[in-house]
């Protein structure tokens, strides 16, 4: 059936009836092109959303302390809640297995200088776990480690922009920089995808900062990540339980919104997930609509083509063509045309995305692109639809008596 002669016969028919071939090809190519562009734009939107959350680990929980707003258990409102080192170990003990990384944070602003270069920066005093929480990438040297914590070493890790500002002539590792009058050894430099502010940061061991900036064990903020194996909903429950536990520990009213605040990324993630789910549903519906439009288009054309070829079918039958030969010639022709057209549509669609893609960034569409396999599946669906839409009338046409077909003018 698939011999050279059949192909010659099909190619001739396609070539000699060019308008017909181009018309049916155009329908499929256009549908696939639209499909590719729509999916590409939708993917671009999703990319934008994902990018908005790359700064911190997406399983992070931030705990802040403030002043109480409600009197509780005989304690007045307006009392200041202060986290201390023991709160870290308390959380670790209380929620064992649920906490992945945990770090204290102490915030200060410092004036830094090195060999005449000066600038002011934010300082974060942290535990070593902070590196994973903040998704900090070490560029050179190392991050703060447990030895630094124990020894209360005067060491710092500086951001890429700090390095650029201060170390214009030399490399920073091993050098001493002056932070508001005290010398610290630079042990590492880092980069961060969170933007310029994150890279204009200096990290220092929490123990060193506590000694230097007050000689106490105060903490401004506790940051942790929940065990990533936890489901989203149990992570949200964990955040709620954590807030409840800390409020109880500090004798804060459960309804006090300011004294202990827990910001759980799981809750954000849930929102984003819901958004992306809705987006996916919309994409799915639009894609499906495009495909259906394509299917209807190609089906119409196939029915028309078979109608147009009825007489030819009659002639072929009178000359001794078996019904199978009639069906196969129409089917193969339709499959060849739709497959080629589908591929062209894919190429054009991808081309357009590549061409206008970079200009769409300000419309919240980043790197619009498609998963080739999705488009190939869509093309196969259209090819199959075209084949089916051609098969039924072709089958019917191959069964009608040649005399009826010949009378068809």
């Amino acid at each position, binding site marked *: 059936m698939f011999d*050279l*002669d059949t192909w*010659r*016969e099909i190619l*001739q*028919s396609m070539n*000699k*009836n060019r308008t017909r071939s181009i018309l049916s090809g155009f329908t499929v190519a256009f549908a696939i092109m639209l499909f590719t562009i729509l999916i590409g734009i939708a993917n671009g939107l999703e990319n934008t959303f994902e990018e908005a959350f790359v700064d911190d680990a997406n399983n992070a929980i931030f705990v802040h302390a403030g002043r109480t707003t409600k009197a509780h258990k005989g304690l007045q409102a307006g009392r200041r809640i202060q986290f201390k080192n023991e709160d870290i170990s308390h959380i670790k003990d209380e929620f064992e297995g649920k906490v992945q990384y945990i770090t204290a944070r102490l915030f200060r602003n410092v004036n830094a200088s090195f060999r005449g270069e000066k600038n002011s920066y934010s300082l974060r005093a942290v535990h070593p776990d902070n590196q994973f929480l903040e998704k900090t990438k070490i560029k050179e040297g190392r991050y703060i480690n447990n030895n630094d914590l124990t020894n209360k070493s005067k060491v710092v890790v500086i951001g890429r922009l700090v390095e650029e500002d201060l170390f214009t002539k030399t490399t920073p590792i091993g050098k001493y920089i002056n932070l508001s009058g005290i010398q610290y050894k630079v042990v590492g430099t880092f980069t961060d995808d969170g933007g310029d502010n994150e890279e204009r940061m200096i990290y220092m061991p929490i123990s060193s900062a506590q000694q230097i900036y007050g000689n106490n064990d105060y903490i401004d903020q506790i940051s942790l990540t929940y065990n990533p194996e936890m489901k989203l909903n149990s992570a949200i429950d964990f955040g709620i339980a954590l807030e409840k536990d800390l409020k109880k520990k500090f004798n804060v009213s459960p309804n006090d919104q300011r004294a202990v605040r827990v910001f759980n990324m799981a809750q954000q993630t849930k929102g984003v997930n819901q958004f992306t789910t809705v987006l996916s549903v919309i994409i799915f519906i639009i894609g499906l609509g495009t495909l259906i439009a394509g299917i209807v288009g190609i089906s119409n054309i196939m029915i028309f083509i078979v109608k147009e070829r009825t*007489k*030819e079918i*009659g*002639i*072929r*039958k*009178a*000359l*001794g*063509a*078996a*019904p*199978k*030969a009639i069906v196969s010639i129409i089917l193969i022709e339709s499959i060849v045309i739709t497959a080629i057209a589908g591929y062209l549509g894919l190429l054009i669609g991808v081309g357009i995305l590549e061409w206008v893609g970079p200009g769409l960034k300000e419309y919240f569409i980043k790197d619009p692109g498609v998963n080739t396999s999705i488009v190939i599946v869509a093309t196969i669906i259209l090819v199959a639809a075209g084949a089916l839409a051609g098969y039924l009338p072709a089958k019917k046409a*191959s*069964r009608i*008596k*040649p*005399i009826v077909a*010949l009378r068809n*003018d």
Partner: protein
Amino acid sequence: MLEIKQLHKSYPIGDSHLHVLKGIDLSVKEGEMVAIMGSSGSGKSTLLNIIGMLDHADSGEYILDGLLIKNLTEKKAAVYRNKFLGFIFQSFNLINYKNALENVALPLYYQGMKRKERQELAMFHLGKVGLTDWAHHLPKELSGGQNQRVAIARALAANPKLLLADEPTGALDTTTSYEIMEFIQQLNDEGKTILIVTHEEDIANMCKRIVRLRDGVIMEDKKVTQVRANQHV
């Protein structure tokens, strides 16, 4: 060659039936050239279509070359048509996007003949109808007479036992008609069995036997002295 006994055929028209063939008995021997005549609606085309396996009878017997033609599958009918029958139609019925050579080669394609072989054979038959120089022209570039000659070459290509012509000169002027009839007579001289449906007396008289149909029955079946077409040209 051809044996038909008590052939009946009717077409449904709304609730009733139009009885087109009411018991036809016909026997044609090898080498005969038979004209089937009758006014429109007499059933002559229906008879030819049944003989040509393009249509099938309701009842009766049809034996072609010793083979009973009955309840054929589409596939088998296609094989028989290809092997036994050559068709010539009033409206030529050439495939418009194929050139003369390709049209003539088409029945050979369905016989499964190799491309080179069938092109040679098609060229030979085109030569027989005097169209060698027009082999690569499309039907629309040829005159009516030329197109009918292409159709004749096509009908002959598969070397059929029986040639069926349905008003072969119906779309042609008198001169061209006689040219075509001359070809057909030559084929008969060479031994081909030919059935021609026509309503033109002069065309019928160029055959060797005339069968007249009226209202679905054979009224008259007589041998005639053949008028040679070349006498008219």
